[in-house]
């Protein structure tokens, strides 16, 4: 072709492409498209911060405005990744300070963020707007004070479930009076009390505030005043939902709620006093998302509230809801798409509530749009799983956790292979699956044959041999993330499927039968895989090569395989082919 569109035209066309996949595809067409695209890409998502380096990102994309990144692997949520492993945000923040003076958004998940990083963010970017820190750690409320004080145009400050060292609530008072741009504030993970006056004034001067998630320290008596100042709220997280029963407190609260015509999502609800729940009834018909996962109240009270919410799409709740409550849910919430049931007493040896597989069966029967489930329970049967699969072939996410991880079908005492087999067979769009229970290699054969769209699989205490792992790696065409703990999977399957690992984001295996020798071999064979051996017992070559490693974390990367921030319990392949450790 002798002619082509001028760059500006192509840029304009590309500007309509928001999906990363589309943009990546565009950049593969030809060199000039690659070049044009990289100059006009404004947002990137890095699924594994060690898959690439800041230098590489900055070199390729010189004009970014928004960066989203994930650090530690998912099992870090359950303390399986030792402290100090990595995922530090600072090197990225420091590198981006120079490269992206117009950066507006930073979203990090499972990364270690220091006060220093937060201060740097707050001072480096004149138009900084959005900071979302999901499950991050390493910073204190001092870092938040810097953000509040210096980010003049801050729109979102969202600290989802991060572990913050809470020195005091004073950080909130650092928002200057001139800051009126807030759209979203989520401080629910913080412990300290903030100044209620400062909070009220902040809310009052933020006409665009859509999301306000308070922390437990904000008492119910204060809630009415806050809501009254923000009747435009779409998402509200309450603080502690308890107070002495007083009719004026109640009517105050009810009045305030009734002014919120746009409220769609409710959360918070620590320490619930059930008598105050009816104060919210006026907004319930508009509620699509309800997070009651801290509300330790009996099923009857939960049901009274839930049955007011006919348009509910998402419900997170404790197992206090019991089977009877889930029956009621199935009857009244026909639009339900996502259900998460959390355990109230996960470490108790005996059940404390009457929640069984039946609850899940009911909901799968009664809610035709249900597509995403996270369910903790204490017993399961193949029959129930088969029924659930038949009822709901539209599942996209199915995560089941039986408290006893190797529990068989409680009716037949057989493995739950057939049940999970039915799930993957019937639910053709399944993208995420977590399994528990007594499971043999057979279930992995089913998964390998049927779960063609599966992207993330979590396995614990399951399987008999390498064959199980082999089925998954060779059969699951769309697999991106595989995390395994305490399974008898080892070297053979890993080495036989080495090439597959480069098509995935990452593989985590802890307390399995992967030997150090196999890790070395894999790393030698696959130069673009980083094979991290994470072992707190000391240098792996002080033990025989056939010895199993504590943890292996394998991920594809275009960055150096010897990351500079490796702690002394992590070993990776040394390019000189003699294993070095720091």
């Amino acid at each position, binding site marked *: 072709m002798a002619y082509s569109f001028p760059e500006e035209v192509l840029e304009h066309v590309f500007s309509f492409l928001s999906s990363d996949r589309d943009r990546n595809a565009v950049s593969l067409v030809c060199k000039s498209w690659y070049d044009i695209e990289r100059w006009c890409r404004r947002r990137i998502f890095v699924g594994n911060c060690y898959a690439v380096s800041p230098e590489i990102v900055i070199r390729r994309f010189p004009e970014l405005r928004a960066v989203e990144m994930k650090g530690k692997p998912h*099992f870090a*949520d*359950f*303390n*399986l990744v030792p402290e100090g492993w990595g995922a530090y945000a600072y090197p990225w923040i420091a590198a981006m300070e120079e490269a992206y003076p117009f950066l507006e958004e930073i979203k990090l998940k499972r990364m270690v963020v220091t006060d220093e990083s937060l201060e740097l963010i707050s001072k480096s970017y004149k138009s900084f707007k959005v900071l979302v820190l999901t499950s991050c750690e390493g910073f204190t409320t001092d870092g938040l004070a810097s953000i509040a004080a210096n980010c003049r145009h801050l729109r979102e400050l969202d600290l989802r*479930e991060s*572990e913050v060292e809470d020195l005091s609530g004073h950080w909130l008072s650092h928002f200057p009076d001139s800051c009126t741009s807030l759209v979203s504030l989520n401080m629910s*993970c913080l412990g300290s009390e903030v100044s209620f006056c400062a909070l009220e004034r902040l809310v009052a001067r933020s006409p665009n505030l859509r999301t306000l998630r308070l922390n437990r320290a904000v008492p119910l008596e204060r809630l009415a005043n806050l809501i009254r100042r923000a009747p435009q709220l779409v998402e509200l997280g309450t603080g502690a939902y308890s107070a002495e029963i007083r009719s004026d407190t109640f009517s105050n609260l009810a009045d305030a709620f009734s002014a919120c015509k746009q409220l769609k999502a409710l959360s918070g609800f*620590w*320490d619930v006093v059930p008598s105050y729940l009816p104060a919210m009834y006026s907004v319930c018909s508009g509620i699509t998302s309800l997070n009651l*996962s*801290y509300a*330790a109240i*009996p*099923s*009857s009270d939960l049901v009274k509230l839930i049955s007011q919410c006919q348009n509910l799409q998402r419900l997170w709740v404790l197992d206090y809801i*019991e*089977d*009877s409550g889930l029956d009621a849910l199935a009857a009244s919430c026909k639009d339900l798409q996502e259900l998460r049931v*959390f*355990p*109230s*007493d*996960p*470490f*108790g*040896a*005996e059940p*404390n509530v*009457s929640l069984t597989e039946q609850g899940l069966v009911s909901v799968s029967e009664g809610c035709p749009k249900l597509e995403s489930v996270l369910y*903790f329970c204490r017993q399961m049967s193949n029959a129930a799983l088969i029924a659930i699969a038949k009822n709901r072939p539209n599942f996209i996410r199915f995560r089941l*956790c039986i*408290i*006893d*991880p*190797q529990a068989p079908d409680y009716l037949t005492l057989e493995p739950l292979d057939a049940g999970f087999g039915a799930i993957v067979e019937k639910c053709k769009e399944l993208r995420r699956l977590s399994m528990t229970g007594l499971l043999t290699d057979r279930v992995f054969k089913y998964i390998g044959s049927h779960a063609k769209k599966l992207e993330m699989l979590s396995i*614990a*205490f399951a399987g008999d041999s390498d064959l199980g792992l082999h089925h998954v790696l060779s059969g699951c065409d769309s697999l991106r993330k595989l995390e395994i*703990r*305490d399974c*008898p999977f080892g070297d053979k399957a890993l080495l036989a499927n080495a090439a597959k690992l480069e098509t995935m984001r990452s593989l985590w295996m*802890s*307390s399995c039968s992967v030997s150090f020798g196999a890790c070395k071999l894999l790393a030698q064979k696959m130069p673009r895989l980083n094979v991290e051996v994470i072992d707190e*017992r000391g240098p792996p070559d002080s*033990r*025989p090569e*056939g*010895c*199993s490693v*504590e943890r292996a974390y394998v991920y594809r990367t275009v960055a150096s395989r010897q990351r500079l921030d490796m702690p002394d319990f992590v070993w990776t392949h040394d390019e000189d082919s003699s294993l070095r450790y720091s």
Partner: protein
Amino acid sequence: METSVATELRLGLPGRDRSEAKIISVSNKRSSSEMDDSCDPQQESVVPAQKAQVVGWPPVRSYRKNILQKKAESSSDGSAMFVKVSMDGAPYLRKIDLKFYTNYLDLLKALQSMFKCTIGVYSEREGYDGSEFAPTYEDKDGDWMLVGDVPWEMFVTSCKRMRIMKGSEARGLGCL
């Protein structure tokens, strides 16, 4: 397999074919905050009903664990009030936390759900007359009483354990 496997520590469950598991602690109910570092397999055989706690299992985020502990601690004297509940004809007992309920209605609803039975409505004169089952409890003095006779607060502090009796047997209690 190498002989070194025998000395290897793993983070798996005890008791399966997998080699030695590192037991993090033997958990007592609701005391997961008091982690005992001693790996003592002996302890397990002494208290067979309790399970050893394994790292990261069940997969519950730490902030969720803490919230519920706070709830347990904030109840009046900081402890739960577990009592055993037996039902005539049922093969095993259950335990419930009386502090979790605020009135008889919720308690009876819970019992009916737990034991899949109907208990019926309480009346001062007839007790649970006419119902298939009647809830009774043993009080501090060792006497067996009908559930519902005394105010709720008094019941919670004096109840040592409960028994759901067959209606026919309970008739005697109702008319005193």
